[in-house]
């Protein structure tokens, strides 16, 4: 994608009155890498803190993608080593299939190089910018090259590649490329990749931190184990919650309604098909012979029309005809949602709440791109009661930490009226209370608002699906809260009665000599019977509320009874409460031992 840029001539005292010729001397190609080097904020490298997060994010996303594609349960190791005040060394290691030697330099040294851009398949990465941009940022800020160690199989030696990037040519420069059999111990499974980037950064805990990102990654990827060594040399392990890999998403062809006229013309130019009928049925999904006939007829052509004869005007007719024709929505087996069960498992291990509910919407389509929305909520327990709810946003299992308010999912949460479900909600805002809302969008193409992939663009179709999913979870929460309130009321009632009947029995004994014990027992029996009656009240939908209630049989709901009465924990999700810390610390000890052993091997 060469771009031209007009250089303004140097200012003189008088105007230079440049001619086309003089101007032409300043006009030349600029490489993509150069462009992004200057506009690094577009990729999420605006400031040192965010840059470090983005670098880790890109590397972890790539690792997870690689592992899943290779059918391997991901085991990710992230280490942030502080070298000096503002300099860090990031190391990210996975147990993926590894990268063949020849491709390493392209993948890590070239912008817009990758396997994911040219296909319509659900994956974390999309454009092939991320990791090479991270390396470029490191090189620019510290001058240090990127070090990649990769091993593709048990019998194959690991090789270490040291890369520098030539920004003006968008080409990698390999500094050294050696086989390092001694590095084999890095990869316990016999394969994997490790990237080390040295860069200028800033480490800070709290919101939008590396810790938060990894925690949320663990929620959305319950099939992965993430080990994180912080700059303070603490080891935090986010353990695997489910042992199955998500299904592999299928690659799909574009849907006729999902393309624009320009794309259509481009596809017509590039197609291997020779006739229109073949073009429509082979290069698109959901178009059979009948539909192809309908489209071509609508455009005043036939399936036998030669592609060569289709000019601009014909293409336009074709485009119009496609818009008018009813075409089935794209197949959705290309989408692999996390699934309610795994979602709950992920949330359960990272969020200290008492009530969990999840909802997975059926797939839907925006602009011809299939997508699917999943929502999970956690309520109560150790979550903070005073703040507003926390919204965790995900796209294709990747946590989104920045630009919250411009994100479609955030808007959907704010638009849902949570008051119906027993929560308080300020006007035009997200609800308040001990609530965590997780919104996940999976799609073959997630419409981000920018290249740095921070927020999902606001499509009506997407927002509607999000709201429907949120409402479904909200209803379950409402049922639960009402039930909890009623239970509290009933137990309160019973305890009140029990308190007073003792007094009454004694009074009656003193007044008319009635047997205190006998009277007490009779009254207690009555109190129990009366409160039991109330327990079995009909709920608001006219169904009998039994012991577990309707929620008891719901697979998408988890109620952690022992969490109900635990004290509120200070910012339990992100701030690392005391309780959690201690838990982690015990884990840390165990982990340390294992890493040591590994080192000795």
């Amino acid at each position: 994608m060469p771009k031209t840029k007009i250089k303004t001539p140097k200012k003189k005292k008088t105007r230079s009155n440049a001619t086309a010729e003089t101007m032409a001397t300043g006009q030349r190609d600029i490489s993509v890498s150069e462009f992004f080097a200057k506009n690094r904020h577009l990729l999420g490298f605006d400031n040192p803190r965010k840059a470090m997060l983005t670098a880790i994010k890109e590397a972890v996303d790539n690792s997870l993608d690689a592992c899943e594609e290779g059918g391997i349960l991901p085991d990710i190791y992230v280490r942030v080593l502080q070298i000096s005040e503002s300099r860090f060394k990031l190391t990210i290691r996975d147990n993926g299939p590894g990268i063949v030697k020849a491709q390493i330099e392209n993948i890590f040294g070239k912008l817009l190089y990758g396997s994911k851009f040219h296909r319509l398949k659900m994956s974390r990465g999309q454009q092939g910018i991320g990791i090479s941009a991270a390396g470029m940022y490191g090189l620019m800020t510290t001058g240090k090259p990127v070090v990649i160690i990769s091993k593709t199989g048990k019998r194959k030696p690991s090789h270490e590649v040291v890369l520098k990037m030539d920004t003006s040519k968008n080409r990698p420069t390999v500094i050294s490329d050696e086989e390092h059999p001694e590095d084999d111990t890095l990869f316990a499974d016999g394969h994997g990749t490790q990237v080390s980037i040295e860069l200028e950064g800033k480490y800070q805990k709290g919101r939008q931190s590396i810790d938060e990102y990894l925690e949320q990654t663990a929620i959305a990827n319950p099939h992965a184990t993430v080990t994180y060594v912080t700059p303070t040399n603490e080891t935090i392990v986010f353990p695997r919650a489910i042992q199955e890999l998500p299904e592999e998403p299928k690659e799909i062809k574009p849907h006729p309604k999902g393309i624009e006229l320009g794309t259509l013309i481009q596809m017509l130019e590039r197609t291997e098909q020779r006739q229109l009928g073949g073009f429509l049925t082979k290069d698109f999904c959901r178009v059979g012979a009948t539909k192809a006939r309908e489209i071509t007829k609508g455009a005043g052509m036939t399936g036998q029309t030669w592609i060569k004869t289709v000019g601009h005007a014909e293409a336009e007719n074709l485009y119009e005809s496609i818009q008018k024709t009813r075409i089935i929505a794209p197949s959705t087996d290309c989408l692999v949602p996390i699934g309610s069960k795994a979602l709950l498992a992920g949330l359960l291990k990272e969020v200290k709440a008492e009530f969990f509910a999840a909802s997975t919407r059926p797939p839907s389509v925006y602009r011809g791109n299939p997508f699917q929305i999943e929502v999970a909520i956690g309520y109560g327990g150790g979550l903070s009661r005073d703040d507003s709810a926390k919204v965790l946003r995900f796209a294709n299992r990747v946590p989104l930490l920045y630009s919250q308010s411009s994100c479609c999912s955030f808007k959907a949460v704010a638009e849902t009226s949570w008051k119906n479900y027993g929560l308080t909600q300020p006007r035009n805002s997200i609800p308040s209370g001990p609530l965590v809302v997780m919104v996940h969008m999976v799609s073959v193409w997630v419409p981000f608002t920018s290249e740095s992939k921070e927020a999902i663009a606001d499509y009506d179709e997407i927002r509607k699906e999000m709201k429907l999913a949120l409402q479904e979870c909200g209803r379950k929460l409402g049922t639960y809260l009402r039930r909890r309130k009623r239970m509290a009321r009933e137990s309160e009632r019973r305890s009140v009665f029990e308190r007073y009947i003792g007094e009454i029995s004694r009074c009656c004994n003193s007044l008319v000599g009635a047997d205190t014990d006998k009277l007490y027992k009779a009254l207690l029996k009555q109190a129990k019977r009366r409160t039991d009656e109330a327990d079995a009240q009909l709920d608001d939908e006219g169904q009998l509320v039994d012991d577990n209630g309707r929620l008891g049989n719901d697979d998408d709901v988890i109620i952690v009874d022992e969490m109900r009465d635990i004290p509120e924990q200070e910012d339990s999700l992100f701030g690392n409460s005391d309780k959690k810390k201690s838990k982690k610390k015990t884990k840390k000890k165990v982990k340390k031992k294992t890493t040591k052993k590994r080192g000795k091997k």
Partner: protein
Amino acid sequence: MAKKKTNKKVTKKTTKKKATRKVGSAVDKKRDDLTKKKIESLATSIVTRSLSQKEPTFEIPTRSISNMKYNKKKRILEMGPNTQTRSLFNLGQSRKFMQSLLLAKGCRDLIDAEKTLSLRGMYYMGLHTIPGTKEKTFNDQGESDGILEDLEVSLDGLREELHVFAKKRGTMVGNITVVDNGDEINCRQMGSGGYAIPSICEPNVMQFKKCEADFILHVEKDTVWSRFNEDRFWEKHNCILTEGSGQPPRGVRRMLHRMHKELKLPVYCLLDCDPWGHYIYSVIKQGSINLAFESERMAIPDAKFLGIRSKDYDRLDLSDDVKIELNDRDITRAKQIAAYPWFEGKREWQREIKTMLNNGFKMEVESLITKDISYVTEEYVPARLKEGDFLD
């Protein structure tokens, strides 16, 4: 000397006690037995209901304006037939149910011990922490006071019959001698403080001995009463002077009622010209909503309202300084009072309240002091009495 004195005192005390018992017990015994029986039957019904697995309940006549009836013939407020059920297994009533029984037991114990207690005493008598909890049976005296009133109405027994009395309030002075608990009290020699009207003025405790007074003047507050007493108004005009510290307590009202009924003394009220004063008059005359069940023993339908009148501002040419602006609450209250059935048909009262509302201000009795310190005792009241200028 000292020894002798103490001896004397002791003997005196014992005689006193004997005297009271003699006077009181004859009448009391019957009443006490009846009250005791009522309390016990309440408990019995609760026990039988509980043992047969029915909800323990008891009925309380409703003490609200909706259950009040104005008896036009008797010209007093009476309680209607409505009752409310208090049940144990109702979250809002459970605690009150327990408290009612506690206090009922307390009253029974008092009757057995032949002693009386103040409202505050009753609060302490029922007060303890419920075993196994941190909850107290009563949070404050207000709670036990309300329950006692409930008990009174539901047992159809007066507070006195339950051996409970309120804190005394109100003073009296005048041409009368009474016997209070066996002691003779000459109300002509009460100094500047006056005789404190006891809270129980039932015939078994209080008897009238010698009365030369022609009428009773009841004033609203202690301050006004002091003015009248200092000026020896009761001596000059041969009357009894009483005061109820605002809304008169039961003792004062019962005293007024008995003097009115038994000694045939007319009652004149000197109250502030504001809705509060008008309401005090209404309570003296017709009875109060809360104690409607006792109206017959307390209300004085013939009581007259002597002042302050709303026209007094013009009539007496008072200065502007005495005006106190009516606030919104005063105005709504005045309208409510004007709509009471016993004021509704009285044109003079309607005019009085209307004038006050038109004036837009209220006046206190003390405002007459701006004319002269003793204007109220020397000019105002004598003039009104002479002219017969009062509201009925």
